């Protein structure tokens, strides 16, 4: 579904991705973990063209991702994204946020879109907050609206860029719960996260990035329980036992 072939990316002199090869199959949940600055968010953002890459190839289905090309808009309607800082439209209600894409980008019929948006908000537990503006919602609620917004596009895959990192600890669970339910329905998901528990329980496989390369990869339980590489072991130790 999403394939990386020898992907390189630099910010000026600084090379952040040094030849990434990976593939995310349909219905797979893949977690990208690694220390900050390892390039995992950058890699994720290359998939829908929010960042450009200089060498190699990323494909979504049969389409090559080219951030400057015409096809990028099409890719973005097929692959949704959920951001660390939610990025809901502040001047629109929860319902309007969810309806925005299908209504104005995909040009679907309002009544249909509305029904779907209401169902999605109900699904993420926000039926009562349909007419609320983002500033009156908690972080966890906002992120759940953002997930509903992503789902409203009926995407083939969803990219999650540290979806719980900006949340107060007590709100992390409600967002992970929604993501877990998506995984159970075999939504294709590429997730940048520091939630090792979540990765272990929900992900099919894990990619451990460090310094712009994939240091270790494999089934989530294996990599996270018995990491082979020293850098992975070290990272997991620091994440799971911070003190």
């Amino acid at each position: 579904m999403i394939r990386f072939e020898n992907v390189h990316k630099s910010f000026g002199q600084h090379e952040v991705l040094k030849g990434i090869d990976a593939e995310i199959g349909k219905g797979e949940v893949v977690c990208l973990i690694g220390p900050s600055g390892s390039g995992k968010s950058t890699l994720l953002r290359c998939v829908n063209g929010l960042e450009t890459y200089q060498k190699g190839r990323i494909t979504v289905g049969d389409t090559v991702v080219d951030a400057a090309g015409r096809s990028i808009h099409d890719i973005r309607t097929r692959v949704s994204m959920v951001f660390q800082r939610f990025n809901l439209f502040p001047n629109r209600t929860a319902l309007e946020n969810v309806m925005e894409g299908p209504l104005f980008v995909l040009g679907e019929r309002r009544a249909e879109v509305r029904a779907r948006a209401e169902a999605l908000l109900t699904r993420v537990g926000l039926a009562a907050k349909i007419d609320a503006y983002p500033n009156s919602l908690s972080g966890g609620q906002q992120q759940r609206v953002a997930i509903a917004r992503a789902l409203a596009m009926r995407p083939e895959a969803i990219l999650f860029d540290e979806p719980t990192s900006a949340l107060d600890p007590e709100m992390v669970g409600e967002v992970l719960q929604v993501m877990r339910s998506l995984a159970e329905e075999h939504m294709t998901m590429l997730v940048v996260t520091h939630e090792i528990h979540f990765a272990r329980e929900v992900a099919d496989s894990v990619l451990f990035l460090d310094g712009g390369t994939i240091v270790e990869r494999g089934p989530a339980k294996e990599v996270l329980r018995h990491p082979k590489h020293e850098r992975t072991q070290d990272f997991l130790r620091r994440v799971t036992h911070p003190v």
Partner: protein
Amino acid sequence: MASFIAQSSEYLPILLKGLWLTIAVTVLALCLSTVPGLTWALLRTSGVPALATPTRIFVELVRGIPILVILFYIYFVMPEIGLDLTAFQAGVIGLALTYSCYIGETFRAGIEAVDRGQIEAAKSIGMKRPLMMRRVILPQAFRIVLPPYANNLVMLLKDSSQVSVISVAELTMQGKMLASSTFNNTTIFTLVALLYLCLTIPLNLLMRQLELKLGKAR
């Protein structure tokens, strides 16, 4: 004080005529500068150098010339290339031209102040630039821009006095003519100042109300 009031009733009708012209010049110039101003801002933030660079040069040129010189240019130089304008027309066009550039810069700042995350969110649901502008960036930019835009309006109102130099008989011009025929400078220019304040103070108050209202909805 008694004489001030007595004289005022004599001068006010004449000054009010000037005041109406001041309002006419201001409102027309505002209407004629807002849409071009928005256009300059959209061109400058388009990311297309062939559009952004000429606009930038144009805006910088106009902003670098005093309004008085622009007014002289339009009123005295344009007829030489066959464009005869009345003083009123020249005044409105000169102010509109100048303020389209000021307002353009205000709008540009507003567009650029919209959070990058909003642009990424819009892109991530497949929005192309025009739709993103219309649905996401401009609605948020207008809120950011309202206070400085209101400030532009108040400045425009005051700068409308400049068109008196090309003989548009607006408030300042009427005051000057009255003063030179009656020598009653104190009364007349106090009245002129008060009449301007009668417009600018309510405007400022109105804008503050609007700001508060919009601030709440954010």
